């Protein structure tokens, strides 16, 4: 062979030895045997179908994924899962763009330089775990394990982290729910021991027929659904509410009312759209309740609003009724009107008397009906609890609770999962501390920074928005056995959450994380970020660990069904890059802590017990479904009513069970991952209604709901026959044991203890309902509200296909022209090379926008697309482009949650638009934390708007 004498490569001998072809942990090729190679050749290009679930939002819809060559090739809904009945939303269908995003976190990284500088270097897992382990061991020795917070963010797969950190010795483990909607859930939790009330429109439901067979029922029974501050078509978590609402409308003539200051997509399906002022949900509900109580007439078929049989299944109605009515005699200082009267509500909500009256009448007279309320409203209001409680009362007294076509508490009826795997038992470990010179003994649980802290002892979901204060000032324990104890917060482990951006105001979080002590060391000594996505919160971390994406790790889904359904989120592909599953991370860290001498962490509780993630999931499945055999029709007529059910649907159906009469448990074969895999990934147990009463008598069954008396409770703390009952009793007991010391939250609203029944107080930053803020009304004429844009959540905004969608007024194609590192597909073939960057022309790509009423915009000289600055009375501001339309109440401005001002470079196009997209959180008042649970007042703010 002839070769021309090209002398472009002459090498020195030294070059040869510089890079030996060694394997040392670098990605590399390996040899296959001929048979291995052949096997792989034949399998390439073939599809494999796997059943899993989506975790891009808490709906966790069942997914059917087609895998080819080890990669997710197609994504559809899993037809066997009733939550989504085979469908997939736009976000779910775009999962590949998240899993295969080049911006994903791929390797463990350690910070080089100051926090927030963005300077990281890659390290091995061993190095990263070693670093974290040593710090945690050190912190435990110096300050106590309670000084660590484990924030699991995302609702999925938190159990491994909870288990680890409970065992380590801190009770301060939290998850996303804490900054989701706690005030919204307050009424249900207090009054039925539940959480979320949703309309009975999940279809199909598996229903026991009179002949004993089970049938998939698709019929809608609802006649009225009222969505208050709730936008299922866009906020999309209770996924069946999208098809269920239109299904009920078209197939059952159901009427839909949407109450929302903005014309949401859900409002397009409404027969009536009411746009009240923001923060007046409780006002409206209260007026509806008063109207119904005052106008109910049992003898007039057109006014028979109340179904008095509810009294059989509840307790305390008289107290509640009396307390509620006591407000009617009072005059509201802001308008001199009688509380909860139609005049009063019209004045405060900005709706007309007729609208309120019509609504109250419609809700009272239409049966079955469901009144449901939302996360943003009342959930994100300082006084959201009140609305939630009244909402529960409204549904119950009109006889709509847990009836066909009525309203269902999805928490009470969903399958149990987790069991001993979550490690709650570690929280009862006894520990000792020195307090004021005396040694005091208590349990790990008694260090909880909220439940036993000084501010929000009833915080059922931890007060994450208060964490920056805790980073700066530590925790004062004022309740429980460790009263008088103070401890600092020294470690914050954040997993699949973005609290710096979303946990209240970003500037407050940044300040707290960057705060240094007198010696120049960071007050918060350890900050770890664990996720698949490179979010703002990663920028400030000390150590970053890449977690396997939802398609690469296994767990269980079951969040919001109307009866017990549990399904397997199978790992359908191998973890990408060097990401690891939660089970592995848990075991690695546990092992390290153990090696460093932590005797609380044992192999028998971690790496020896859970060799694979499937072991962990099987333990989580052990209690399923864990609900009692109640309702009409009785789910299992062959078993005694009120007995707890455990086991696969198959074994329960066939009678392959043991019945334990002493403990009232029917135990079939335990649900396992293998069983789920053999059954399209899902286990479904039968639906029933009227679960609060016996199936064959109009009496309470005393097994449901989940309260202290097993009745619906309208009173919250009372004594009877020497025993004390009620949802608030344990918190008042704490206060009493602490010599009557009133927690900060209650002090703010002038309460000296948790109320014994109906209560009312005003929200913050609302000049129309709270006289304290009247003075701001003129200069800050707009109420600022916010709402999810499903496609553009904090963690999913970088997906290019979702940038081609527009949503209401908060996500619109108003981009400036920009270049993106989201390169487009290049031609295959004999081509000249093309540049990597792609230009997005102006106004072709969706960005976060500011939604404003057309007339308001005109008055302020603002046109559609103009850049404006929005400023609040605290002097904080944000910029964005305006989308002006007739679809929002005058005096209201709406911005999507985390749709703009994104400052993480790992977000692709979203980062490019940060200078002209609005950040709602920058306008949130970080000091507005609602009094009972410490939840941030995301929706309580007023602003002014000016063209830039």
């Amino acid at each position, binding site marked *: 062979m002839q070769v021309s004498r090209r002398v472009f490569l002459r090498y020195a001998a030294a070059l040869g030895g510089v890079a030996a072809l060694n394997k040392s942990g670098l990605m590399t090729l390996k040899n296959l045997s001929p048979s291995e190679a052949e096997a792989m050749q034949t399998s390439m290009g073939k599809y494999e179908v796997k059943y899993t679930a989506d975790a891009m939002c808490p709906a966790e819809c069942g997914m059917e994924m087609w895998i080819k060559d080890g990669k997710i090739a*197609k994504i559809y*809904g899993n037809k066997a899962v009733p939550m989504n009945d085979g469908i*997939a939303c*736009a976000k779910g269908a775009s999962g590949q763009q998240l899993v295969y995003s080049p911006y994903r976190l791929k390797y463990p990284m350690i910070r080089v330089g100051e926090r927030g500088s963005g300077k990281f270097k890659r390290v091995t897992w061993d190095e990263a775990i070693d670093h974290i382990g040593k710090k945690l061991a050190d912190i435990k020795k110096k300050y106590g394990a309670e000084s660590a917070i484990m924030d699991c963010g995302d609702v999925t797969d938190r159990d491994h982290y909870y288990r680890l950190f409970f065992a380590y010795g801190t009770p301060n483990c939290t998850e996303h729910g804490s900054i989701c909607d706690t005030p919204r859930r307050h009424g249900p939790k207090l009054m039925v021991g539940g959480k979320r009330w949703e309309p009975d429109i999940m279809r199909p439901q598996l229903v026991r027929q009179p002949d004993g067979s089970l049938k998939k029922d698709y019929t809608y029974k609802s006649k009225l659904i009222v969505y208050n501050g709730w936008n299922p078509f866009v906020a999309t978590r209770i996924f069946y509410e999208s098809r269920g*609402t239109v299904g009920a409308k078209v197939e059952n003539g159901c009427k839909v009312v949407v109450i929302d200051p903005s014309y949401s997509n859900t409002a397009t*399906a409404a027969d009536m759209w009411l746009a009240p002022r923001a923060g007046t949900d409780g006002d409206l509900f209260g007026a509806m309740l008063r109207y119904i109580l005052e106008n109910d007439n049992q003898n007039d078929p057109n006014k028979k609003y109340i179904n008095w049989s509810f009294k059989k299944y509840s307790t305390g109605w008289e107290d509640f009724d009396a307390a509620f009515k006591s407000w009617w005699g009072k005059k509201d200082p802001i308008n001199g009107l009688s509380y909860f009267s139609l005049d009063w509500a019209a004045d405060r909500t900005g709706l007309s008397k007729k609208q309120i009256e019509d609504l109250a009448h419609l809700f009272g007279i239409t049966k079955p009906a469901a009144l449901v309320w939302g996360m943003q409203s009342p959930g994100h209001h300082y006084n959201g609890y009140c609305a939630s409680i009244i909402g529960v009362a409204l549904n119950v007294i009109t006889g709509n609770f847990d009836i066909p076509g009525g309203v269902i508490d999805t928490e009470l009826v969903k399958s149990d999962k987790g069991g001993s795997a979550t490690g709650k038992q570690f929280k009862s470990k006894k520990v000792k501390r020195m307090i004021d010179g005396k040694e005091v003994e208590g349990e790990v649980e008694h260090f909880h920074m909220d439940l036993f802290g000084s501010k929000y002892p009833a915080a059922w979901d931890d007060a994450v928005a208060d964490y920056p204060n805790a980073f700066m000032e530590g925790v004062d324990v004022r309740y429980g056995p460790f009263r008088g104890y103070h401890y600092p917060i020294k470690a914050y482990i954040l997993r699949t959450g973005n609290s710096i951006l979303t946990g209240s105001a970003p500037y407050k979080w940044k300040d707290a994380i960057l705060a240094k002590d007198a010696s120049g060391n960071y007050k918060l000594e350890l900050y770890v970020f664990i996720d698949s996505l490179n979010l703002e919160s990663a920028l400030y971390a000390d150590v970053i660990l890449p977690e396997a994406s939802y398609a690469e790790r296994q767990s269980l889904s079951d969040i919001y069904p109307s009866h017990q359904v549990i399904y397997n989120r199978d790992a359908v592909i191998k973890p990408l890059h060097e990401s690891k599953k939660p089970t592995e991370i848990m075991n690695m860290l546990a092992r390290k802590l153990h090696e460093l001498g932590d005797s609380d962490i044992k192999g028998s509780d971690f790496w020896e017990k859970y060799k694979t993630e499937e072991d962990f999931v099987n333990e989580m499945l052990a209690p399923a479904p864990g609900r009692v055999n109640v309702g009409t029709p009785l789910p299992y007529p062959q078993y005694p009513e009120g007995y707890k059910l455990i086991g696969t649907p198959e074994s329960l159906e066939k009678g392959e069970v043991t019945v334990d009469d002493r403990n009232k448990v029917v135990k079939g074969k335990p649900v396992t991952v293998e069983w789920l895999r053999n059954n399209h990934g899902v286990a479904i147990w039968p639906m029933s209604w009227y679960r609060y009463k016996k199936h064959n008598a109009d009496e309470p069954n005393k097994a449901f709901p989940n309260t202290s008396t097993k009745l619906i409770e309208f009173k919250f703390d009372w004594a009877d026959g020497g025993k004390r009952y009620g949802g608030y009793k344990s918190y008042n007991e704490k206060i009493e044991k602490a010599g009557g010391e009133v927690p900060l939250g209650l002090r703010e609203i002038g309460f000296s203890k948790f109320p014994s029944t109906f209560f009312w107080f005003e929200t913050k930053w609302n000049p129309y309902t709270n006289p304290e803020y009247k003075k701001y009304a003129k200069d800050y004429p707009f109420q600022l509200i916010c709402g999810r844009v499903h496609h553009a959540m904090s963690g999913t905004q970088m997906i290019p*296909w979702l940038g081609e969608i527009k949503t209401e007024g908060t996500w619109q194609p108003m981009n400036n022209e920009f270049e993106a590192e989201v390169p487009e597909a290049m031609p295959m073939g004999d*081509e000249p090379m093309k540049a990597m960057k792609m230009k997005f022309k102006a106004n072709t790509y969706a960005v976060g926008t500011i939604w404003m009423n057309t007339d308001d915009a005109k008055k302020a000289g603002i046109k559609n697309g103009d850049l404006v600055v929005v400023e609040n009375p605290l002097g904080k501001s944000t910029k964005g482009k305006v989308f002006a339309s*007739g679809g929002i109440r005058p005096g209201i401005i709406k911005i999507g949650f985390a749709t703009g001002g994104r400052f993480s470079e790992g977000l692709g196009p979203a980062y490019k638009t940060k200078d002209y997209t609005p950040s709602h959180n920058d306008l949130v008042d970080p000091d507005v934390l609602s009094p009972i649970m410490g939840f941030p007042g995301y929706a309580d703010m007023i602003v002014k708007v000016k063209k830039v």
Partner: protein
Amino acid sequence: MSKKYALLVDLRKCVGCTSCQVSCKMENAVPIGEFRSKVDIADTGEYPKPKRYFLPKICNQCDEAPCILPCPTGATYKREDGVVMVNRDVCIGCGRCVGACPYGARFIHPHIPVKNDPSKYAKDVPEVKGKKARDLRVVDKCDYCSHRLAEGIEEPACVRNCVGKARFFGDLNDPNSEVSKLKASVKTTDWHPDYGTKPRSTFIAPDKEVFSAADGQINR
């Protein structure tokens, strides 16, 4: 008897989620900025009576498709089952069919090069004169997910994943198919019947204003 495929969208049930648009992207690797399936969203009206319309659109697989005649190579043709196809091996990317579609359902695919030698047609098709195959790109459009139909899955991805359960697909020659039954029982309206192309895809649309409010072309 051969199949007669058709799509029906029940706008009473469309919730404007755009899953049909994105599911199509996922199924068919449609490039950013181009659409085989697009949801047109239009805001109209003034406070307190605003309106918002959702009109999900795909190629209508017209029975008298105006895109077929202008094709100089015969690459585009209508199958017996109704689907209007583009043969990528034959297409020379002249783009005449793109302009001929009043609905804007077609687009030039930025990344799939032409295979057929355009020089054969250069005389009559000046658009491709002097160009090599590798400089030209084929045309693309919705084809009712013909690759799924070929596997016996009579369910385009957009129908499979539809959040409102508003999309129906099937054989009009089968009186028991869902589309047949719906068409027989509920009034349907076409998008721009005035174009005279006899679209296969149709809508249940109680509020006709949707067709004027959300009237944009799919592409362009």
